C-alpha cells in the first residue's frame, strides 16, 4: 500500500513528464481499440454481405439437386426443416427454382425463375432493399415479377411491363402465364443480374405445376450463431438432404474473405507493434532520465529490489490511468463508428460478386475482447519499458548512476 502511495507521489513530482506519458499511452490504447473495432467490423461485414442478401448462412438441398438442378429433386420434408429452424430462432426461407423463357414482344430471354416467400426472404436477407426501382413482391400471389438488372435491359422491360413466361412444367405440359414487372434489382452479382426472375412461390407452383415443393431452404441466424452452428442444429432434421454452409457453397468467395481477413490481421499486428513501440520509447526516455535519481536513492541505502518495486508500481499506476482514459476515448470513438459507419461511397459504389453485395459503408464492431486486449498489451509494454532502465540503474554503482546523463 505504501509502495503505491510513493508511486503516486513520485508520478506527480514531475507532472509534465507524467502528463506526456499518459497522453501517449492513452492515445495509443484508444487507437488500438478503434483499429481493432474497425478491422473486426470490416471482417464481420464482409461475411454478412455474403450471407445477408440471398445466400444465407446455410442452405439445404436435395442431395442430387446441385449436380443436375433437376426440377424434380426437391427438398424432402421441408416443413420439418422450416419448423426446426424457426423454433431455434433461425430465419428460414423456402425457394423453388426452374428454368424457362420470359418474353416481351419480340424480345425473349432464358431465365431462372425463383419462387420465393417474400415474408421469409425479408427475414433472411436484404434482397428487397436492393431494388433499383419499383417494389418487391407483395407477399400474395399476384403474377408480379422482380427482374435482375441486365435481364430487364435484355427484355426492354420496365416497371409495369407485361411479360409472358413459358416453361416446361413438371407434368410435361407447356406452362405459361402472364406476369407484370413489379421491380428491378440493383446489381447484385452476375448470375442474378443476367438471368434471375423472382416470383411468388404460389405463382411458381401454378406455372411449373409444382405445388408445395422447394429446391432450397436458406437459413440465416443474422449473426446469432456461426454458420457451422446453424448447420449442426439443422442437420438432425434434414434427413437425406444436403446441408451446406455458405463457405461450402461459395468456396471462391470464402477464400477471398479468408485472404482479406488474414491481411487485416497482419495490419492489426503491425498497428499493435507500432503503438507498443511508441509507448516503449516514451517510457524508456522517462525512466532513463531518472537514473541519477535512482543513484541518489541507492547512495542513501535503498535496496535494488526496492527501486525495482517502486518503478514497476509507477508503471502500473501509469498503465491504469492511461487505460482508463484510453479505454473511454477508444470506446466512444468506436461506438460512434459503429452507429455512424464511415461512408466510402465517394470512392466507389460498393462491390458485387456472386450475389454478394459489399457495402460502401464501413462500420466498426466493438467487442469486450477488443477493449481488453489493447489494455493488457499496454500494461505489459509499460511495465517492461520501465523495468529495463530501472534494473540497469539498480545494478549501477551509485556514484556512476548519480553522474549518468
Amino acid at each position: 500500500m505504501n509502495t503505491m502511495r510513493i508511486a503516486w507521489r513520485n508520478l506527480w513530482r514531475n507532472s509534465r513528464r507524467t502528463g506526456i506519458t499518459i497522453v501517449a499511452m492513452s492515445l495509443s490504447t484508444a487507437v488500438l481499440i478503434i483499429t481493432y473495432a474497425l478491422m473486426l467490423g470490416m471482417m464481420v461485414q464482409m461475411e454478412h454481405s455474403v450471407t445477408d442478401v440471398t445466400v444465407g448462412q446455410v442452405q439445404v438441398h436435395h442431395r442430387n439437386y446441385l449436380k443436375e438442378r433437376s426440377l424434380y429433386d426437391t427438398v424432402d420434408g421441408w416443413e420439418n426443416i422450416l419448423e426446426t429452424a424457426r423454433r431455434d430462432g433461425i430465419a428460414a426461407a423456402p425457394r423453388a427454382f426452374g428454368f424457362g423463357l420470359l418474353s416481351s414482344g419480340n424480345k425473349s430471354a432464358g431465365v431462372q425463375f425463383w419462387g420465393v416467400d417474400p415474408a421469409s426472404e425479408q427475414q433472411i436477407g436484404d434482397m428487397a432493399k436492393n431494388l433499383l426501382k419499383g417494389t418487391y413482391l407483395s407477399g400474395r400471389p399476384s403474377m408480379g415479377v422482380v427482374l435482375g438488372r441486365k435481364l430487364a435491359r435484355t427484355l426492354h422491360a420496365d416497371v409495369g411491363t407485361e411479360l409472358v413466361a413459358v416453361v416446361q412444367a413438371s407434368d410435361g405440359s407447356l406452362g405459361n402465364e402472364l406476369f407484370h414487372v413489379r421491380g428491378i434489382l440493383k446489381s447484385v452479382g452476375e448470375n442474378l443480374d443476367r438471368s434471375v426472375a423472382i416470383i411468388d412461390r404460389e405463382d411458381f407452383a401454378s406455372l411449373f405445376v409444382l405445388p408445395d415443393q422447394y429446391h432450397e431452404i436458406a437459413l440465416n441466424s443474422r449473426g446469432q450463431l456461426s454458420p457451422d452452428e446453424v448447420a449442426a442444429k439443422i442437420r438432425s432434421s434434414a434427413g437425406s438432404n444436403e446441408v451446406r454452409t455458405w463457405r461450402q457453397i461459395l468456396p471462391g468467395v470464402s477464400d477471398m474473405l479468408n485472404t482479406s481477413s488474414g491481411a487485416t490481421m497482419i495490419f492489426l499486428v503491425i498497428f499493435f507493434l507500432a503503438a507498443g513501440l511508441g509507448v516503449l520509447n516514451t517510457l524508456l526516455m522517462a525512466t532513463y532520465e531518472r537514473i541519477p535519481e535512482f543513484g541518489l536513492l541507492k547512495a542513501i541505502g535503498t535496496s535494488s529490489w526496492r527501486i525495482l518495486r517502486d518503478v514497476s508500481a509507477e508503471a502500473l499506476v501509469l498503465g491504469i490511468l492511461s487505460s482508463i482514459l484510453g479505454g473511454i476515448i477508444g470506446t466512444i470513438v468506436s461506438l460512434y463508428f459503429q452507429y455512424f459507419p464511415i461512408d466510402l461511397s465517394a470512392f466507389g459504389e460498393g462491390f458485387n460478386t456472386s450475389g454478394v453485395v459489399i457495402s460502401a459503408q464501413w462500420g466498426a464492431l466493438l467487442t469486450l475482447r477488443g477493449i481488453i486486449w489493447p489494455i493488457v498489451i499496454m500494461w505489459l509494454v509499460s511495465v517492461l519499458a520501465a523495468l529495463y532502465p530501472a534494473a540497469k540503474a539498480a545494478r549501477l554503482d551509485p556514484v556512476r548512476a548519480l553522474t549518468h546523463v
Partner: protein
Amino acid sequence: MRQVCGIAFFLMAIATFVPTSVLPGSEPVSSADILNHVDDLFRGSSSHATMVMKVITAHYTREMKLVAWSKGKDYSLVRILEPLKEKGTSTLKAGNNIWNYLPKVKRVIKIPSSMMGGSWMGSHFTNDDLVKESRMADDYTHSITFEGTREGTEVIELTLIPKPEAAVVWGKVVATVRKSDWIPIKIDYYGEKLGLERSMTFSDIKTLGGRLAPATMQISPADKPGEYTLVTYDDIEFDIALKDSLFTLRTLQNPEAL
C-alpha cells in the same frame, strides 16, 4: 440432338413433292433407293393428319391428341386437341423458325435459338427436330451392311456415315428395313463418339393415305432407359388443297380458324 432424318418427316408429315421412282422389288437393290423410299414415305406436296402422342418419362406420363397440316417442306402447323387443359396450344413452323401459340395467355411466342434444343411439348422431340430435316441418301455415305433374317423377318440393314460437309450431328446412323417392301423397322442414331444416342422403332404397318406405312413410331433416348415417346397416326391425307394463309401467325393465334 438436331437433324434427325426421319423424325421430322414422321411428326410433321413434311410435305415435299418427290416422285417415288424406284419401288421395292426392283433389282439390283441400291442403298440410295431404299433410303429415298424411307424418306418419302410420309411426304407429299401437302398433308393433313391426326395423331396421338404418348410420352413416358421417369417423372410424368402424358398423352396428347394432335392435328397437323403441312405444305411444301417449309410450312407446318400442329395443334393440340387433347387434353382439354392444353387444347389449342399450337406450333407453327415456317422455314427455320418456330412459334408457339399459348391459348391460356393468348400470346404467340417465337422460340429463340437458345431454346431450340429444348423439348417440344414435353416429348423426346426437340424443337430442332421439327425444323431440321435432311435426306439420308444425300447427307450420308451409305452401304448395305446386312441382308438376311432377323427375328423371323427378311431385313436389309444400312449403315450411314455423314458426309464431311453435311450439317448433321450424328456420327453414324444404322437403318433396318423390311426386305419385301422397304418399310423401316428401326433406325439407330449414334453420337460423334459412336455411342447409341437414340432409337426409333416402327410398327403397326398399314395403309395410310393410300400408302403402306408404319402407323406407329417410338423414339427412345439411350441415356434414359424406360423413357420413350410414341406417335401413332390415326389418319393422314396427302396432296390436298391447303391455303397459304393457313401457315401464318394470324391463323396460329386463332384456334377456331382452320
